[in-house]
């Protein structure tokens, strides 16, 4: 019997209502909390870490040495966690946004602005891509994972972001997307799974991924 309480961590940014409603839709029996209470995070079976906007503001909400930060760090160690957008970027060691921000260093690599990409963008042959990367793009599944169950390889998800994850360890890449360069659109390590796109805004495919997360034991 899978117990199913989910906390959507509220760091004051992003469309948390849509994440919550999407979970309610795919899993009416799940108990969903939107909270920044350390005890609520500690007691939940699963944690969703969403976020939009500026990563500096987002990390500031988490604080340094706070109980909230500790609760989130403990969750990263021990229970299924789904990171969305900034929730993916924060798992890396460092992001160049907002003058440089240190992340949680659970996934190897860094987060950069699309204009910092070293390869194709510098080539005059390459057509300049618009920033932000906004819209429905393909996700190539580079690794088998329970969260991809029932989702076609190459399926489109909704993206909106100007910074992208540049992974160093290929074994942690679960999905890749091409936008001038190829970047990590899904990353995983043990009980962590994180996506750059917005499953809560990606219609059927997104709802399937959220359903898979609710059914996932983190292994």
């Amino acid at each position, binding site marked *: 019997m899978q117990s199913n309480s989910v906390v959507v961590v509220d760091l004051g940014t992003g469309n948390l209502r849509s994440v919550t409603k999407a979970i309610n839709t795919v899993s009416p029996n799940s108990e969903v909390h939107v909270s920044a209470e350390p005890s609520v995070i500690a007691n939940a079976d699963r944690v969703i870490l969403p976020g939009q*906007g500026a990563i500096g503001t987002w990390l500031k909400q988490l604080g340094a040495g706070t109980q909230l930060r500790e609760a989130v760090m403990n969750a990263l160690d021990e229970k299924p966690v789904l990171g969305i957008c900034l929730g993916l970027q924060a798992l890396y060691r460092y992001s160049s946004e907002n003058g440089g921000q240190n992340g949680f260093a659970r996934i190897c690599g860094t987060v950069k602005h699309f204009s910092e990409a070293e390869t194709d963008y510098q080539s005059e042959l390459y057509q300049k891509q618009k920033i932000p990367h906004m819209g*429905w793009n393909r996700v190539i599944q580079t690794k088998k994972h329970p969260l991809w169950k029932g989702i076609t390889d190459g399926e489109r998800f909704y993206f909106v972001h100007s910074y992208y994850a540049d992974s160093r360890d290929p074994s942690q890449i679960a999905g890749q997307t091409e*936008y001038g360069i190829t970047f990590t659109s899904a990353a995983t390590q043990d009980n962590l799974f994180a996506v750059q796109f917005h499953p809560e805004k*990606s219609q059927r495919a997104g709802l399937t991924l959220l359903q898979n997360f609710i059914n996932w034991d983190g292994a």
Partner: protein
Amino acid sequence: MPLAKRIIPCLDVDRGRVVKGTCFVNLRDAGDPVEVAARYDQENADEIAFLDITASSDNRETIIHIVEDVAEQVFIPLTVGGGIRTLEDISRLLHAGADKISINTTAVNNPNFIREASQHFGNQCIVVAIDAKQVKSGSDGQKQWEIYTHGGRTSTGIDAIDWAKKMEQFGAGELLITSMDRDGTKTGFDLDLMKTITSQTGIPAIASGGVGKLQHLVEGIVAGGADAVLAASIFHYGEYTVAKAKQFLAKNGIEIRL
């Protein structure tokens, strides 16, 4: 280029109903916003836009409830515009389930509002809506356009191309470009207007105003350089479904989510 072009049905909302007019006037009723949005979602729309065309304070409450109701059952991006004046307005709509907020009049009155809003909420959710009307050609024979505010009622004397570039610098994440000359006429987008703006800016652009047949959508993307195309009446009255429009674009070699 794997990123798909988007089709965005637009719901003009007045007193809780979807309406559509010609050249910003002569409104006709087109249904309940929640039902209409749910239908577009079923038809695989890539995004849905709500425009509060009266933008009164009463209507503000109405549109927040509509967004809340739609966001409970529709899991695609929602853009809301009309009468946005304060950061608090933006915050309330985002909390109701909107993903992007489109701003026109307030940006013209106070361009710094766009800077503040994009710093506060992230530029991914700040859309600047530009209502443009062609003016007489300049001395060099080049076409020129002027922007209007208050739902097309007030002229500003501001050049549309300069304005688009300025809004990009101020932190807009996307431009929604409506040709007032074409709106409701079903004669196609103003492609010169679109091309002039998309060739001089580096943020996504939505073409709006004038769609009467599916070929117009193709033209907006191919000739106009638009990343997304917005249309209202061709979808509201059942002339075409969104699904049919997407198939048509795909057949014309445009990258689309089917």
